[in-house]
């Protein structure tokens, strides 16, 4: 997030797109509700009539995967109607003329034809956002989990730069991170392109820095993403270490995933449970989990916070860092892993990271710091891009609309979009074993508009057969007008309804993020299949 969570109470216009925040980030959503109670205007762009859409002053029910068209048309209107922040554009951006040219054809009427949102509503949204004193954008995976995820983000960033809604309190472009420490995993350098602190591996100076610190030289070449690595299993990748991820269930195209892992010569899994992924391993290490280890999480607002051990782990389970150090020792690499405690590991990270350089284990005891904290004197950075952007000027880019990897056809005439539910988290390894949440949502449901239920001869509460070119699942139907006609929704939290057998037609070419949000399917009564 460019801005801290406290800022969520401060905008006068809020634009939420591709985020079901009341379910995925409920506590952050309470702050938006406060802003709304205090009079802020809410624009919600989402295919479904999610709770935020019901609260919104303006709901833009776009067709799944058509965000670039909608956002391009909003930018078109902002330019056409002279609603830009000219001083901001002149001082802090570049590429404006190219953008104006690019936007010429992206009229609201053109967009209406693609995304299904009435041109008048697109105009109204553009006017509301551009007219804001403090306009803030919030999004989650509904923006990024597409083949055009990067285009989506760039389209949002264009709106921000056109209107100067950045670098001030209550504004910004704010992706909400889904997992508790997904931010921290990147900060810590678990990325194929960056050392800890987002220092590019391709920069020889960084190579030299780490070679000096570790006494080992690391390639200047980029690594490959997990998605590519899974594709390469049995071809060029033959061993994997998977830490705390149930790849088989969480990743798209389950059959492909299982096949990939089975093609390995050596698979080592570190986890708390014998997940579907761990079951395929050669060696499984029992991990100590939450409440059982000391450590650090960084949240979505880049706040660096301590987690603490409250109880002993079960049996002989150990913290991940100890397990990995043990493997390293057995390989004769023990010198690189001399840690006595989580504190030692974290402090080494701080010494080598530029974003954490001013931090250490003791300084983050109270969780006051937002990174970057480049040195000891630095107070932390709750708001990013105050005076300038990392690259100097903000660059307008010109993404064009592309269809999703697969579009609806006679065989697969319905859009499936996937997401999360309030009571459950990811693949339910935790919430499925917690009495309360499991009682609230005990099973997977396919949300179908009542008219579609009728049209497709389904029964509310009955079982449907849902197919995509990659697979099929049986799933219970729930009639609800939360789904628009022609689009169905479910989560991927339940292992017995293998929704990710169906998804995964394509990946964003730049980030390799899977298109989990859009998948054409057919839905029919399960009939004798139940």
């Amino acid at each position, binding site marked *: 997030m460019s801005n801290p969570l406290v800022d969520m109470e401060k905008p006068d216009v809020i634009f939420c797109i591709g985020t079901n925040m009341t379910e995925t980030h*409920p506590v952050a959503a309470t702050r938006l509700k*406060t802003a709304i109670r205090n009079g802020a205007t809410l624009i919600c762009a989402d295919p479904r009539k999610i709770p935020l859409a019901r609260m919104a002053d303006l709901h833009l029910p776009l067709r799944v995967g058509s965000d670039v068209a909608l956002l391009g048309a909003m930018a078109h209107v902002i330019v056409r109607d002279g609603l830009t922040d000219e001083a901001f554009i002149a001082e802090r951006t570049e590429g404006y003329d190219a953008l104006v040219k690019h936007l010429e054809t992206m009229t609201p009427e053109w967009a209406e034809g693609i995304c299904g949102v009435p041109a008048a509503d697109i105009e109204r949204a553009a006017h509301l956002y551009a007219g804001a004193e403090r306009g803030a954008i919030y999004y989650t995976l509904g923006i990024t989990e597409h083949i055009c995820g990067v285009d989506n983000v760039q389209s949002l960033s264009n709106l921000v730069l056109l209107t100067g809604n950045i670098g001030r309190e209550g504004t910004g472009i704010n992706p909400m991170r889904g997992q508790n420490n997904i931010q921290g995993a990147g900060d810590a350098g678990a990325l194929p392109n960056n050392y800890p602190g987002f220092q590019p591996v391709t920069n020889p100076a960084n190579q030299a820095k780490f070679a000096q610190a570790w006494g080992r030289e690391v390639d200047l070449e980029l690594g490959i993403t997990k998605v590519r690595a899974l594709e390469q299993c049995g071809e060029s990748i033959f061993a994997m270490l998977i*830490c705390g991820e149930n790849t088989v269930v969480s990743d798209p195209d389950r059959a492909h995933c299982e096949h990939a892992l089975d093609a390995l010569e050596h698979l080592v899994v570190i986890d708390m449970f*014998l997940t579907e992924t761990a079951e395929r391993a050669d060696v*499984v290490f029992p991990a100590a989990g*939450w409440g059982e280890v000391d450590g650090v999480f960084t949240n979505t607002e880049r*706040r660096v916070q301590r987690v603490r051990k409250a109880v002993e782990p079960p049996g002989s389970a150990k913290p991940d860092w100890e397990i990995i150090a043990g493997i390293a020792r057995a390989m004769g690499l023990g010198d690189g892993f001399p840690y006595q405690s989580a504190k030692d590991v*974290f402090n080494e990270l701080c010494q080598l990271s530029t974003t954490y350089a001013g931090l250490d284990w003791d300084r983050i005891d109270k969780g006051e710091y937002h990174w970057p904290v480049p040195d000891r004197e630095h107070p932390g950075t709750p708001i990013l891009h105050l005076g300038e952007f990392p690259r100097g000027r903000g660059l307008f880019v010109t993404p064009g609309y592309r269809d999703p990897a697969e579009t609806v056809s006679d065989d697969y005439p319905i859009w499936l979009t996937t997401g999360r539910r309030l009571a459950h988290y990811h693949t339910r390894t935790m919430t499925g074993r917690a009495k309360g*949440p499991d009682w609230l949502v005990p099973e997977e449901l396919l949300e179908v508009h009542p008219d579609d239920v009728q049209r497709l001869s389904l029964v509310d509460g009955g079982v449907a057969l849902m197919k995509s070119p990659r697979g099929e699942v049986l799933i219970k139907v729930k009639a609800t007008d939360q789904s628009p006609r022609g689009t169905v929704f479910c989560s991927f939290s339940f292992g017995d309804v293998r929704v990710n057998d169906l998804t995964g037609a394509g990946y964003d070419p730049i980030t390799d993020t899977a298109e989990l949000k859009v998948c054409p399917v057919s839905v029919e009564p399960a009939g004798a299949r139940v």
Partner: protein
Amino acid sequence: MSTITIDGQSVPFEDGETIYEVSRRLERDVPTLCYDDRLEAFGACRLCVVELEGARNPVASCTTMAADGMVVRTATEAIERHRKTLMDLVVSENPKGARIDPLRGLASQELAHLAVRYESDGSRFVGKQSGTSRPDDTNPMILRDYDNCISCYRCVRVCAEREGDYAISVANRGFETQITTEFAGLLEDSDCTFCGQCVQTCPTGALGDLRSMEAQDQPGEFEKTRSICPYCGVGCSVDILTKNEKIVGVQPAMDGPANLGALCVKGQFGWDWVDSDERLTQPLVRKDGKLVPASWEEAWERAAKGFKSVVEKHGRHAVYAVASGRAPHESAYSVQKFVRYGFGTNYVDNCSRA
């Protein structure tokens, strides 16, 4: 600068500060029951009354703004007598309220503590209890023991003002007062999201955390460990409750910078997986196609040998590692270092792309 005099001490105050807030800054122990500093002051219980010079009657300090030149006394004999009478009344209506297990909720002891402070045992008045419990609501998370309700409306207000769900409201008045959902039904049929915020602000334990109450009868006290919720990226601060070396509950941290005392159903009630019997307790290695228990040394050796032989056969770019987005930094840092230090490659990623 404007000043106010409290118990003889003259202090400056900021615009919009109440007498109660200034008194608290001065560490005056003014009792409250309907007050929660995250909520708009309500002025219902009257326990926070103070003497204000020039005012005929005592005023509720939580709803009265500080003003220049005010002279306030927070604990005169008359005020304390007045408070005792109020407490005697409240306790007589809620005799159980003075003996509530602290595992019910964060604020559940407020009434009990004041009962001790004012030596109220419920014997002075013949009480008539208001509020009727809802044993028919069999949800496994929130106890609705309204026999203990004192109509402070903190639950209703936190649900509206903080959670923004408006799931519960107040029906009737006086002794008939009842906290209820729309249509007097069950929480699961209302707009309730089971965030537990009402539970944690209830000062009497009329609302209780059923999950932690399971540990109520175990001997001993519980302890708190400050941590961060393991679910989404908001990073809410929590206190993990432990009793006899087991996690028995979670309470929100009121001073948590990301959440200011709020949690959602996952953070509040989603912790009991930790003690699941499906947890792995020892390393497993594959032998004859089956995963079987092994010692740590054996498992470490097996893991190491596998990586070494793949490197020998296919080169160092044949090894890949995936770090978790849920484990702490030390895990991800170790995973990437294992790859970079061990194999000299950048063949590492985390699970954010799915």
